[in-house]
């Protein structure tokens, strides 16, 4: 027989192609994680009702402790609105920088300073904290946490109601737990 099978060449080519397409797997994983966190914050902005006196001007979301999340929010959720308010984002590196925001997100790396953070917040701010674990539940109004690989949230309704925030029904219904 003069003709020979050609298949052995196949794998080399496919391996070359596939190896070129999987450079830095962690970056997209990180980006998707940040987007999910951003999606939840956006849902909180849309499904929590602030007292009417805070419904004018821009809707400011402050991020404390996660520059990556801030960058994703600033790119992905740019020009989004809640009600009639345009959503804007700000990043804080220290508690002293925390300004007059509607919603403040504190990343899990910074939960140790929650008490300090709470001192500088005014009535207007809905505090959202990322938890490493539900047992570390904070006195924030909403806690974001991972349960079985899924990002979920815990509502602290009594804490939210102290500041006259009204939590929407959908948000309440779909919460992982409510305190």
């Amino acid at each position, binding site marked *: 027989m003069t*003709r020979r099978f*050609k298949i052995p060449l196949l794998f080399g080519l496919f391996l070359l192609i596939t190896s070129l397409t999987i450079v830095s797997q962690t970056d997209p994983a990180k980006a998707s994680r940040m987007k999910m966190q951003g999606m939840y914050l956006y849902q909180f902005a849309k499904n929590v009702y602030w007292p009417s006196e805070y419904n004018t001007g821009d809707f400011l979301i402050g991020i404390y402790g996660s520059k990556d999340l801030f960058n994703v929010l600033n790119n992905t959720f740019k020009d989004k609105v809640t009600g009639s308010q345009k959503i804007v984002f700000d990043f804080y590196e220290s508690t002293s920088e925390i300004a007059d925001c509607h919603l403040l997100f504190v990343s899990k790396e910074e939960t140790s300073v929650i008490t300090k953070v709470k001192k500088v917040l005014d009535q207007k701010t809905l505090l959202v904290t990322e938890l490493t674990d539900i047992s570390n539940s904070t006195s924030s109004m909403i806690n974001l946490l991972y349960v079985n690989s899924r990002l979920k949230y815990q509502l602290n309704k009594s804490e939210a109601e102290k500041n006259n925030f009204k939590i929407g029904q*959908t948000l309440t219904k*779909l919460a992982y737990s409510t305190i």
Partner: protein
Amino acid sequence: MSFFKKILSTVLIFGVFSNIFSQSTYCPEKMLLLQKYKSKEYENARGYIDTVLSQCPDQIQDAYFWHVCGFINLDVFKYVENKEAGSPTKAKAADCFIKSINLDIEKKYFDLNNKLIDYVSTFYYNDAVKILQKFDTKNQENALSYYNSFKKLKEISNPDYDFREKEVDFNFGIGMLYKMRYEKDKTNNKSLLDSCINYLNKSLEIDSDQYSANYNLGIMYHNLGVDIIMEELDIDADLEMVILMQEQAVNYFSKSLPFLKKVYQMKPQETSIVQGIAAVYYSLNDMEKHVEYMNILKELESNSGE
């Protein structure tokens, strides 16, 4: 002169005599056909096939006639059509050899017919592989058709042939073509993804240790999870949809892990696998495991830099 040519010369000489002295009716058209073929007028010879059949109907039952018809078609395919992949002539050649085998009670041409069927089958196989090698997604259906023709003929020429190795390779190759087509337009080609996964799984059903299929499924499932969140999840989606799509993404992340773990066992020094596993653990929020594999990755990278 090739192996087949040498044999054919003998067969032709034998055929001329057998035709003259056989009990079957003398068929001048058949003599002309043989003459044309001997003088390498392949197209003309082919043209005489139908004439012989209409003028000498007893040839329909003649194993030798079909054997020669096979040669004629095969040479048209080789020398006139320049072995064109889509040519139906090689199929005709194979059909003639098969007919010859079926009529050849004395098995005079059996071995040669079998070798020639095998020879034709190889063209089909190589044409199928060429499509895969060129990532010629437009001709994917042809690759399948060629491969099936290869199998059909090979089963005739070599009934005990073990297709396992080729099935593994071919299913993997087709799966990768589906993957490429899907990646060209992820939104509109979603159905191709299922086909891709099916073919890669078919490959693994035959050989569960096949590295490339395991590796690609592992990476693909993770990327699918990421794509759901990054590309399919609309930022204005309602909360129910966010939760639902996260669920789908996590399912994909979970599916990815066993495949990547398997290839990690095969190639523990391969950084792209370690990087993939670290990414999957990150996506599954298993930070302890993520850090463990990131440390392995760092170690591998520092060792390779030494």
